[in-house]
């Protein structure tokens, strides 16, 4: 009877197949690094997210190979509240939606030159969510116009 039960257990475990495995070292790092993380966006070896520390939320980019946050000079202004972020596959470009001075803006940040470029929406609208393709040269953005959500595509040089 006991042998049969063990055999059944082995059979059941075998039937489950491979399972996704939590990554405890990185998850521990994320837990220690800040009070909260939200809106993840994965590149090839990059994790972009919105991180809250000491009551302030900022865009954070972590290099998953060496498990360290990357400096983003010029991006996280003290008077800005980030709303969403997306990273290109190589981690070089970040599309960010942020609120500042009562306006909600869509930004493109290029790490190689440390510049923030504001992308205008035409017709005007309020951006809410953003996605970059792998190359960082095509962007899809959810925009509120006339009380309706639309998706615009923006090709970037």
């Amino acid at each position, binding site marked *: 009877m006991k042998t049969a039960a063990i055999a059944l257990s082995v059979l059941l475990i075998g039937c489950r197949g491979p399972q996704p495995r939590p990554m405890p070292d990185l998850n521990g790092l994320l837990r220690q690094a800040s009070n909260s993380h939200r809106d993840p966006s994965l590149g090839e070896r990059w994790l972009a997210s919105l991180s809250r520390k000491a009551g302030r939320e900022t865009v954070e980019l972590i290099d*998953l190979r060496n498990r360290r946050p990357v400096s983003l000079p010029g991006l996280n202004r003290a008077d800005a509240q980030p709303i969403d972020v997306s990273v290109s596959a190589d981690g070089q470009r970040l599309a960010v939606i942020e609120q500042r001075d009562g306006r909600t803006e869509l930004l493109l940040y290029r790490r190689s030159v440390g510049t923030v470029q504001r992308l205008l929406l035409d017709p005007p609208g309020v951006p809410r969510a953003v996605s970059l393709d792998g190359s960082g040269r095509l962007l899809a953005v959810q925009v509120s116009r006339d009380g309706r959500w639309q998706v615009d595509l923006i090709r970037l040089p």
Partner: protein
Amino acid sequence: MVSLAITACSARSERSAGSSPGRSQQEPALSGDGRLLAVITEKLGRPTVQLRDLASGRLLPLPQLNRHQPHSSPSLSWNGRFLALITQRGQRRFAVINDRLTGRLHHLPLPGHRVPIRLSLAPDGRQLALQVADRGQWRIELFDLSRVLEPDRAAADRQTTSRTESAP
């Protein structure tokens, strides 16, 4: 159908090709190669994922994802073989990954007290980042999918995955 306009600093914008005027579209997600766009739209009043080939404007079928709405937070791998998103059964929310090549639906098991909120699939499909609500906090948890999914890489360094434009 596609409106063009010049935006600041030479960026060029257009409305999502083939989109239905009047129908709400939310939570856009591009495939790594930029060929496919997933959005959440209303289908019979229920938020449902929709996948579109941007070149042709054609909607691609997702037969494994006709149920378990509301759907939210879609995310695509490089060639769009894998579509990850959050679904709901009863009161419980689940993270699932649809393999469009084989038609399989992979479920991501989570301990009982965690509720999935948003997710992001790595371009090659080998990792998943999941935002969960855990005891009043938002956290991101990373999962290794290398034993679950084949890699879905860019054409230049692809080894095992074939294109999935019309699959299945």
